């Protein structure tokens, strides 16, 4: 199946300056393609730069260096005015359904805001009609129109957030940990909804999560990040059945299984502490914690290369 590239990131770097000429290297020289109609998951631990990368892809965060192309057109250098047409194609769903809805606006106001900003509907009535349509698409009803965010449960709020994100019929949605703040029983409702919408509207997701079992369910491809760098990218099936990068293996092994029969006597435990993104280690950034690290890992930075149907950045699969 030949897929078209929807979004391309080339050499993306994001740094946040700190006092005293130091800086946080949140994302370092990352290149990533997102295909049309796919769900690409971005997994990694907190502080690995996955959220920053996600926000940079839709220019909510300006990159320090690098280029992003949308359907082949570079969008990084565009003026805010020229970017407007692209902006509406790219939306985001946030992690915290409590913080992502303005407490002083009704659901109608929140969902209608994108429609009004781009003057999508001709009249107020048409806008309201469209808002109801959107609410129904995410499993809410017209009864919810004039309620405020605090009158909803976490799951319902996240539905409102999703309705806002799909209001402009975007091509691309960044889902930034959309279910991690929710209770287990509600998580699945939202995940099913997201998957359903993706199929129904042909959406493309960049799905950011730290929960690998959630990713397993929703993603076609998965991309593992460690300390601002990509470690491994490949089809979910391939990566989960045979993880190649040592970090991916640790990550998958660390998940506690909800089955006491699968308890392990010996666990693969990661040694040491996460290095600071202010002072990332030279060479492979994972080498300080990697049991297979060699001299080469300490000095030479590994590049992504094709290994067994996916890309891995590790010297083990070198020559």
């Amino acid at each position, binding site marked *: 199946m030949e897929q078209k590239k929807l979004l391309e990131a080339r050499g993306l770097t994001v740094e946040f300056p700190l006092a005293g000429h130091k800086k946080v290297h949140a994302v370092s020289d990352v290149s990533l393609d997102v295909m049309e109609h796919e769900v690409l998951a971005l997994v990694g631990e907190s502080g690995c730069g996955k959220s920053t990368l996600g926000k940079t892809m839709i220019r909510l965060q300006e990159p320090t260096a690098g280029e992003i192309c949308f359907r082949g057109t570079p969008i990084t250098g565009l003026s805010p005015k020229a970017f407007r047409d692209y902006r509406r194609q790219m939306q985001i769903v946030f992690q915290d359904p409590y913080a992502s809805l303005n407490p002083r606006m009704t659901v109608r106001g929140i969902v209608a805001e994108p429609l009004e900003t781009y003057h999508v509907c001709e009249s107020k009535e048409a806008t309201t009609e469209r808002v109801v349509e959107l609410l129904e698409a995410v499993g809410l009803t017209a009864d919810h129109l004039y309620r405020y965010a605090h009158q909803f449960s976490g799951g319902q709020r996240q539905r409102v957030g999703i309705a806002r994100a799909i209001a402009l019929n975007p091509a691309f949605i960044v889902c930034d940990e959309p279910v991690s703040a929710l209770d287990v029983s509600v998580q699945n409702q939202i995940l099913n909804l997201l998957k359903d919408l993706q199929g129904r509207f042909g959406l493309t997701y960049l799905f950011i999560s730290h929960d690998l079992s959630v990713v397993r369910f929703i993603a076609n491809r998965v991309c593992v990040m460690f300390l601002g760098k990509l470690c491994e990218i490949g089809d979910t099936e391939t990566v989960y059945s045979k993880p190649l990068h040592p970090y991916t293996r640790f990550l998958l092994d*660390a998940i506690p299984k909800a089955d006491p029969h699968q308890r392990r006597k010996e666990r693969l435990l990661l040694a040491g502490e996460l290095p600071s993104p202010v002072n990332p280690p030279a060479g492979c950034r994972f080498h300080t914690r990697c049991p297979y690290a060699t001299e080469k890992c300490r000095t030479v930075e590994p590049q992504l290369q094709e290994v067994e149907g996916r890309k891995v950045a590790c010297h083990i699969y070198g020559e």
Partner: protein
Amino acid sequence: MEKTTLNVEHLCASFFTDHGEIRAVNDVSFQVPKRSIIGIVGESGCGKSMTARSIMRLIKYPGKIVSGSISLVGKELTALSETEMSNVRGEEISLIFQEPMTSLNPVMKVGKQVREVVLLHRRVTKKEAKAEVLRMFEKVGISEPEKRYECYPHELSGGLRQRVMIAMAMICRPKLLIADEPTTALDVTVEAQILELMKNLRDEIGTSIILISHNLGVVAELCDYVHVMYAGRIVEQAETFELFDHPRHPYTVGLMNARASLEQQQTVLDTIPGTVPNLAALPEGCSFAPRCAQCGGRCHECVPELTEVLPGHFVRCHLAQQGV
């Protein structure tokens, strides 16, 4: 020699608000056998944290224990004076919280915070106490203990902070450790380290552990017994393997099925319809009935009793009781 470390019977605890009493823990009974790890599982607001705080007698205002008994190796904790209780805390029972970020005092060196516990419960000099702390730091896997001793909490990572908390909790070799979502705020790889550490400490020191979690995986990994809570009540309790192999309560079954699989890609995830009920407005009868696919007429009328359906396996459900 007693076989149980902790025996909780008919514990009820409530919040007293302007809108009246909200029963957060409702008739909860369980035992913690010696050297065992028991798990309490449930979603937010099910009363699991409140149960933990009740045992420590550290419920936040306006909450209060209403009735019931909590006995630690024969000592009735609810009858102790505040002073006697503070001698029990840290010495015989200790508590680890969810957020290692906020549960350490930001303006005090972590070493001193741990040393404080030793000085409080042991007749030792400051120097001896410090040596004890350094030994404990080593035991919980804190590298460079001398250097970490002088650190402030903000200088440590989340994982290290949780290790400091564990060192603080275990340094007096308490009979019981209550861990309230100890790994929820941590990354999976750190979580695995911390769980491993807790298991080793149990084996080494012989402390019984109550592990409170919303994550079935964590519980399956570590616990000998599991108690499932829903809306303030225990709805099912059994030995871990039994519970995971033969869950009886529809809520437990729902939770188990809702777990996304790591082995294969599912097309649709199983869900439990509806949301967690509001404790201030619980439905008549079984609290889970409105979300239960199998509920019948009786479920809406009276609250089912917690009954033993198999030896050691208790369920609070009308259907499971009939269907044995």
